[in-house]
């Protein structure tokens, strides 16, 4: 199996695992999220958004919990084996419907995963075939999506004042919403975050820097997960890391798992 196929397969599995854990953590809140939703109704959706809102458009309003259970089943299937494209399409539609209904609970991680689930409909892992230009579209869009997220958030931070003057992390750490402050917050840490996010989109194109930046990213996201409590968003980003996993690492894993490698790619 090719390195690219391995990475795509890992990505698909991790994506569904994320979805599975998200659903399991959301089910105790199903009453407020979906059954008697707390989030105000979204406005007139239009044709495309109406398709994504689902409930009350092409699905009965009271079907949220059965849909969540069906999505749980799809997530289990996708986490352990390849699924047909139509299950991928339903997974995306159901996730969109549930997250639209509970939009007050959404964050950047939710939106990232909606995009990932859309493009994953078109991902395929078929070791017997070469990847043609069209089959590379979803893979490249997903890979670039990660870089875009870092670049934009870095540029947005440059647009303010507190990240450049080094006070931003102090403000976050002292915010009772995200605290308690456990890390020694220094201006250097602010600049390191800024530097990491702005340089990530360039650093991942070369082998040695890719390894260092991916490792730094793992530390960064685990930090935001367990220090700031933004767990779902942190792991959503880490799922995307699998598409940038270094070839040497893939080869090593394949050797360890005794999978025959036929070629390297991208």
């Amino acid at each position, binding site marked *: 199996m090719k390195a690219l196929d391995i990475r795509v397969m890992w990505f698909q599995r991790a994506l569904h695992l994320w979805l599975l854990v998200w659903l399991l*953590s*959301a089910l*105790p*809140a199903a009453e*407020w*999220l979906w059954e*008697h*939703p*707390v*989030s*105000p109704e979204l406005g007139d959706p*239009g044709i*495309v*958004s109406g398709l*994504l809102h689902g409930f009350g458009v092409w699905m009965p309003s009271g079907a949220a919990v059965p849909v969540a259970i069906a999505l749980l089943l799809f997530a289990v299937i996708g986490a352990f084996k390849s699924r047909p494209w139509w299950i991928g399409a339903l997974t995306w539609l159901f996730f969109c419907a549930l997250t639209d209904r*509970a939009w*007050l*609970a959404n*964050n*950047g991680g939710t*939106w*990232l995963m909606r*995009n990932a689930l*859309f493009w994953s409909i078109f991902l395929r892992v078929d070791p017997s075939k070469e990847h*043609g*230009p*069209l089959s590379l*579209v979803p893979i*490249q*869009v997903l890979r670039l*999506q990660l870089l*875009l*997220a870092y*670049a*934009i*958030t870095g*540029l*947005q*931070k*440059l*647009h*303010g*004042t*507190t*990240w450049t*003057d080094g*006070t*931003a992390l*102090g*403000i*976050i*750490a*002292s*915010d*009772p*919403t995200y605290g308690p*402050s456990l890390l020694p917050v220094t201006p250097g840490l602010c600049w390191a975050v800024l530097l990491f996010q702005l340089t990530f989109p360039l650093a991942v194109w070369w082998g040695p820097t890719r390894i260092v930046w991916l490792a730094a990213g793992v530390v960064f996201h685990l930090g935001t997960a367990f220090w700031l*409590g*933004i767990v779902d*968003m942190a792991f959503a980003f880490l799922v995307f890391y699998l598409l940038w996993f270094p070839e040497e690492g893939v080869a090593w894993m394949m050797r360890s798992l005794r999978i025959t490698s036929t070629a390297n790619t991208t």
Partner: protein
Amino acid sequence: MRSRSGRKWYVVFAVAMHIAMLAAYTAPEEWVPARVRLWSQAYVRPVFHQTWGLFAPDPPLCSCELRVLLGPSVSRPLAGSHDPFLVRRMALQMGHYLGGTRPLPDTLVVDERMEGAMRGLVRDTGGTELGLGFQAVQYCVDDVARPEHRPGRIVPIRFRSP
């Protein structure tokens, strides 16, 4: 039949346009020409919506906790530590939508949509009964050099609905 390399360039162009539209949609507003911004909104919002503004351009200077009044001097947060994390997040986002990341006015006036949301979170305490009161508790940084110094402030909430 179109050659493989010809198709490749169509694909490169399509991927580049998609990413460019996402960039125009998520970049700081002042950096994107108005017309391009409109195109990006039409393309991105229905299916590919995303935002990358967490703690950017600056982290919020105020935290805002919404509370329900259970008696003359008794209150509790709309969502506490015992609630599922997505319920806590909804309570947090409600505070953000009501402008709680900046100093609030002396009285916070809340529209019908968000009133329903707030009452829905505390329906176990009779939150749907019209008589129940709410307040916001804010802790704002007044000097970014001393962010841990956050004086607290209670802001009464009044609903716009009669």
